[in-house]
């Protein structure tokens, strides 16, 4: 069956649209925090949450019990909650004799479980009878037409057919389908984890899978006749069309249908979506796959499994399903109740017996009894709950006096209220958080300094920097600033010893410039341990060797296991001594001239050829002359033909010499094509002096550091250390693409210390005195250690101050660790561990392979403050704030503010939303318990041995002892700038404008000139004064 082109394109477009709500999933090697409802950000927050619930079955708010606990702990503002309830009541009609505000407030704060689980059978009249003790008067008949319509909505709708069949017939088509598809995805998308790879991957996901499926013994043994389906078309679009036509789903519903199919494995779908759009992703380029392929595989397998189950009774298409429900409504209802787990327990056995027998008269008899029992049970349960609620409200007697109409109105009000209560809680929680933030702000004008500070330090805006900045400022004359962790310098880095480039910038940016890390300490022999490790790695990748290796060297792994487990810190220190110390390196970040580039290329190729000759031919160094190397290079690049002399020098026959030259071209890539690529890459190396001056100037102006430079200006990038942690990258710098900020810090420091760069900045009005030394440093967020980098570049005159700087940094580290450890491991005695013990504990966490929570990371993030440091200096924000330094006075055209809004704030919002949803529903939006995670293909994790790719954050990151540790709030953003200045900047950045208007971010503007506070709420800006006790008045809708 070959499809017309227009139909193919239409199907592609439908799949594209169907995949839009599914967020990207980046490979975990560079973990990118993202909003799981990113695809729904065009909707207001409330609507997006509802849609997310429908698509992903994920909860958008915490359970009521948890909010009640927060209320008791003082994390929710009761007054705001009451105001929200009153606002809601104002939109509803009153119920005679019932004080709705009081009752609903009681419901929220004193009733643990929601009341209004939807009743299937019982109506208001039945509940009324139950309340009045007249259960026997409940109705006995059922409106079959209404029941049929209800079943159509529940079962039919846009659900995949097999899902409906599973629901009605207790089959497990969905589970089997997911398993088969996941196995195929694991095989195809593997990135070096498996020793045996799937054949034919180069032809794409669908084609490779198709070839294998026709010969798949596993499918054959299961009796799954996939060949017949695959024979219908050789293209994924053709297969999709065939399956949908076979299932007789109307074309108008296809996009919806595709959506439902894709969200079943939204982790895999998100990964494929990202991969198919990542232009420079090696694996995506070599083994292409897109959502159309994925969907075609899924639909084909689904249809084959469905056909396996389809018989005389089991419907196999949409019309058959609809017909079954209409013709056998009673049976369909019993089946739905039983297989969806909602069956009345006391009648479960009878219902199962009836549906298995299939005898219509038995079914009818059981149906009548079942409906009667279900109606009574539902009415009684709801009546009991209403009564309990009334008792809590000290007015239970009112319930029995209500008429049926009044009771109906009350139940409708409760239902609507419980649907809206999540937002009430959230807004009340945000109100309290805003109070906490605003209470300690310092809005007084800054006092001019009489002397420059001892040192200034630029930290990443990451919430973890807040603590260390506060401690550093506390212990000495230090001034700190917050800037995006890549310091405004997006680079690709080619690290020493690595063959591939890493992007060190936000995920949405592609860096144009490449920086090379060069060895500055001379050649180093590979250590014995390094060779051994390499050999072990090769051994583990072999299929059969491990069986023998276990017997031979298994004990060695035992020593390693015992050491890592019992004394992780000491063992890791000892292990580090086995490896040579890290070499001294320099960064090549100046633009290369053409000759320089050519010279470097030649040098690299010569070095590779020397290695190749040593390794492959075993020639001693004295025989590998420059001339030999030059001849080999020229021959490999086809500038000359292989000669007898060359063969003689290599002590090879001519044929062997030709083979070696071919190997140089193929394996070692000494060829023209690769040379051209490398030359292009070399052209990307470095920055011109103008570019360096521009980047440095922009970075300094964006944080308001334009004068009064101190002797030391530290550029502190951050990274983390942990063992056995697939989420390691999530603890690194998000602004650096999930990597450490070490290279960005070093790059900017090197640029800033150049006299030529400073001279150009001076011409622009930014004067950095000659005695200012920019120093790169690294803040390890797991241990809180701050390590100074490139010490050898510090001028001699500054060395006398270095000890004081070291002491200050060390003291701040220890104090920060002490503050942080109290949250990680609460002391049994109630007294937090001292600085010594805390530092040791932090170091241990970083080296303990059994530690599921080496640090909290960005958990409890709540605020994003854009303004001067003085504003928040007095506020102990407990590591909950992104602090981005900004001085509006040096930004008259708002460009710097817009740049902050476009970049760091968007990243902050992604981080905030990821934490939010991972907390409110860790099973659906988060990735569940780390203990059950297994790495899949080296790019993601699964739960157990086979599951969807787990997106979101693990339980250990956002929960503590089963309760939320992270408080799920929308990001409360505060901009310190004149109101019009800030408002125009927000309006000028489309992404932020949409996020603010749709309620994904709570936006505050503090005007330093008028001291007025402006809040964006209910679609408009509201001015609020800044009193000592600051209370917001939210309303029921957002």
């Amino acid at each position, binding site marked *: 069956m070959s499809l017309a082109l227009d139909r193919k394109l239409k199907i592609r477009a439908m799949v594209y649209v169907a995949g839009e709500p599914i967020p990207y999933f980046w490979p975990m090697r560079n973990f990118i925090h993202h909003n799981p409802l990113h695809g729904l950000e065009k909707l207001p927050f409330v609507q997006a949450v509802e849609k997310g619930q429908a698509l992903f079955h994920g909860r958008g708010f915490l359970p009521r019990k948890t909010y009640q606990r927060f209320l008791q702990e003082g994390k929710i503002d009761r007054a705001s909650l009451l105001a929200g309830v009153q606002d809601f009541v104002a939109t509803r009609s009153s119920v005679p004799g019932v004080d709705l505000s009081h009752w609903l407030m009681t419901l929220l704060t004193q009733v643990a*479980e*929601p009341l209004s689980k939807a009743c299937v059978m019982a109506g208001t009249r039945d509940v009324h009878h139950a309340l009045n003790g007249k259960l026997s008067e409940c109705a006995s008949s059922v409106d079959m037409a209404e029941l049929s319509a209800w079943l159509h909505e529940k079962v039919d709708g846009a659900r995949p057919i097999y899902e409906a069949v599973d629901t009605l017939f207790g089959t497990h088509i969905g589970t089997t389908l997911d398993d088969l598809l996941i196995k195929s995805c694991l095989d195809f998308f593997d990135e070096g984890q498996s020793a045996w790879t799937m054949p034919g991957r180069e032809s794409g996901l669908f084609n490779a899978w198709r070839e294998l499926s026709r010969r798949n013994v596993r499918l054959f043994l299961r009796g799954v006749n996939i060949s017949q389906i695959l024979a219908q078309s050789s293209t994924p679009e053709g297969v999709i069309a065939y399956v949908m036509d076979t299932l007789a789903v109307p074309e108008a519903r296809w996009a919806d249908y595709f959506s439902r199919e894709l969200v079943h494995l939204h982790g895999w779908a998100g990964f494929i979506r990202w991969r198919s759009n990542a232009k420079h992703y090696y694996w995506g380029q070599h083994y292409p796959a897109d959502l159309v392929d994925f969907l075609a595989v899924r639909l084909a397998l689904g249809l084959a499994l469905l056909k396996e189950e389809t018989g005389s009774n089991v419907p196999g298409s949409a019309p058959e399903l609809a017909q079954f429900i209409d013709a056998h409504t009673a049976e369909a209802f019993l089946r739905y109740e039983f297989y969806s787990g909602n069956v009345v327990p*006391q009648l*479960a*056995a009878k219902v*199962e017996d009836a549906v298995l027998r299939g005898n219509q008269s038995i079914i009818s008899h059981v149906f009548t009894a079942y409906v009667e029992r279900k109606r009574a049970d539902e009415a009684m349960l709801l009546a009991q709950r209403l009564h309990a609620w009334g008792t809590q409200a000290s007015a239970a007697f009112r319930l029995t006096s209500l008429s049926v109409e009044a009771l109906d109105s009350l139940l409708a009000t409760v239902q609507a209220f419980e649907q809206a209560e999540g937002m009430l809680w959230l807004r009340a929680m945000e109100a309290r958080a805003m109070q906490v933030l605003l209470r300690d702000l310092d809005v007084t004008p800054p006092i001019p300094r009489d002397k420059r500070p001892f040192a200034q330090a630029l930290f990443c805006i990451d919430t973890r920097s807040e603590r260390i900045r506060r401690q550093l400022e506390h212990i000495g004359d230090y001034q700190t600033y917050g800037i995006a962790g890549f310091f405004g310098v997006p680079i690709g880095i080619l690290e020493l010893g690595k063959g591939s480039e890493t992007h060190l910038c936000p995920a949405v940016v592609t860096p144009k410039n490449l920086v090379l890390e060069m060895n500055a300490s001379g050649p180093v022999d590979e250590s014995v341990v390094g060779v051994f490790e390499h050999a072990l790695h090769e051994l583990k990748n072999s299929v059969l060797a491990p069986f023998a290796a276990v017997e031979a060297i298994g004990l060695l792994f035992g020593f390693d296991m015992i050491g890592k487990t019992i004394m992780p810190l000491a063992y890791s220190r000892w292990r580090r001594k086995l490896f040579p110390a890290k070499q001294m390196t320099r960064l090549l970040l100046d633009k290369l001239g053409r000759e320089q580039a050519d010279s470097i290329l030649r040098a690299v190729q010569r070095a590779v050829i020397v290695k190749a000759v040593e390794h492959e031919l075993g020639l001693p160094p004295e025989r590998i002359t420059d001339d030999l190397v030059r001849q080999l290079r020229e021959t490999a690049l086809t500038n000359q033909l292989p000669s007898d002399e060359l063969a003689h020098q290599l002590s090879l026959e001519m044929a062997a010499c030709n083979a070696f030259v071919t190997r140089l071209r193929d394996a070692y890539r000494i060829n023209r094509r690769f040379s051209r690529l490398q030359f292009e890459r070399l052209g990307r190396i470095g920055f011109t002096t103008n570019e360096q001056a521009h980047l440095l100037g922009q970075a300094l102006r964006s944080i308001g550091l334009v004068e009064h430079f101190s002797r030391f200006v530290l550029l502190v990038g951050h990274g983390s250390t942990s063992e056995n942690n697939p989420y390691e990258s999530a603890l690194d710098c998000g602004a650096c693409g999930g990597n450490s900020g070490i290279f960005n810090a070093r790059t900017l420091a090197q640029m800033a210390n150049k006299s030529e760069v400073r001279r150009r900045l001076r011409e622009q009005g930014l004067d950095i005195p000659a005695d200012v030394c920019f120093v790169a440093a690294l803040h390890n967020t797991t241990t809180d250690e701050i390590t100074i980098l490139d010490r050898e570049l510090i001028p001699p005159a500054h060395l006398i101050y270095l000890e004081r700087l070291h002491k200050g940094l060390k003291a701040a580290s220890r104090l920060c660790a002490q503050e942080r450890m109290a949250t990680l491991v609460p002391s049994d005695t109630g007294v937090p561990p001292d600085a010594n013990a805390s530092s040791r504990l932090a170091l241990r966490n970083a080296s303990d392979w059994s530690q599921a929570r080496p640090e909290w990371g960005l958990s409890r993030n709540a605020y994003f403050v854009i303004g001067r440091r003085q504003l928040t200096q007095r506020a102990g924000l407990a590591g909950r704030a992104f602090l981005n330094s900004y001085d509006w006075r040096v930004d008259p055209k708002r460009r710097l503010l817009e740049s902050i809004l476009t970049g760091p704030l968007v990243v902050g919002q992604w981080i905030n939303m990821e934490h939010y949803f991972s907390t409110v529903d860790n099973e659906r939006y988060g990735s569940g318990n780390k203990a059950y995670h297994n790495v899949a293909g080296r790019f993601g994790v699964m739960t157990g041995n086979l599951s969807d790719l787990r997106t979101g954050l693990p339980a250990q990151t956002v929960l503590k002892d089963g309760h939320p540790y992270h408080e799920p709030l929308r990001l409360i953003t505060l901009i310190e700038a004149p109101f019009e200045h800030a408002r125009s900047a927000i309006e000028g950045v489309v992404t932020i404008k949409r996020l603010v208007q749709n309620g994904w971010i709570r936006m505050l503007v503090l005007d330093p000139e008028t001291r007025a506070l402006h809040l964006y709420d209910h679609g408009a800006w509201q001015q609020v004064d800044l009193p000592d006790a600051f209370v917001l008045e939210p309303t029921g809708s957002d």
Partner: protein
Amino acid sequence: MAILSLLAIGIFLPLFPLSMVWTAFFKYVPWAWLRALILLAWPQIGLTIAFSTHAQLPQWAAGWGLLTAALYALRMLTLRDFSTWIAFIAASAFALLWIGLVNGNSEAVLRFQGLGFSASFIIAAAVVPMLKNRLGAAYGGLHCGMVQRLPRLAGVLVLAVLAATATPLFPSFFALMAVLSEASFMTAVGVLMVWLLWSWAAVRLLQGFLPGVWSRAQTPPDLSLRTTWLSGLGLVTLAGAATVLSSMGFTGGW
């Protein structure tokens, strides 16, 4: 008369299709104490009829008993109702007594074997009302996640099911060993297959109760500490008694 005796024995030591009397009867007994009594008495009645009438038992009855046991064991795999599950495993176990009966085992030994099976099933039957009171029905697959929400009840349930499926050192284990010791090689293989099916059925049953996500809005109260300890003590006592009696040779060759 002989045929009548055989039919009667076939009802009380359930042989298919007469075993349907047993399973139907057990399902409709409402009270837990009555079920316990019936579990205890049923095979004893069958043995009493067999020995008091000196019925001539055909050789094929042993094979038919084994097939009956296998049939009910297989059928157990798909059962979710715990009461029915107990009825079926009892039918399967009591049917195995035919092997010893046809081979001419002594009455005392067979009675102890019967008691061994019955005692283990009574434990399982005692758990049924515990489940019904808390969950509405003793029905697997309706309320998963018991291990997290009702850990004591989950623990007692597991032990009860293990006891019923002839796990060492419960009485049914010794009874089954005794059956095996009297069986020929092929019959023993058949008995072992039945035992394997019991284990499989046990896991499938427990899967419907223990793991998973708790779906009910509220969690009923778990077993009290006292009840848990008493249940545990009861199980340990039973296991101990079975071990001792078995070592004294009461249950036969093992």
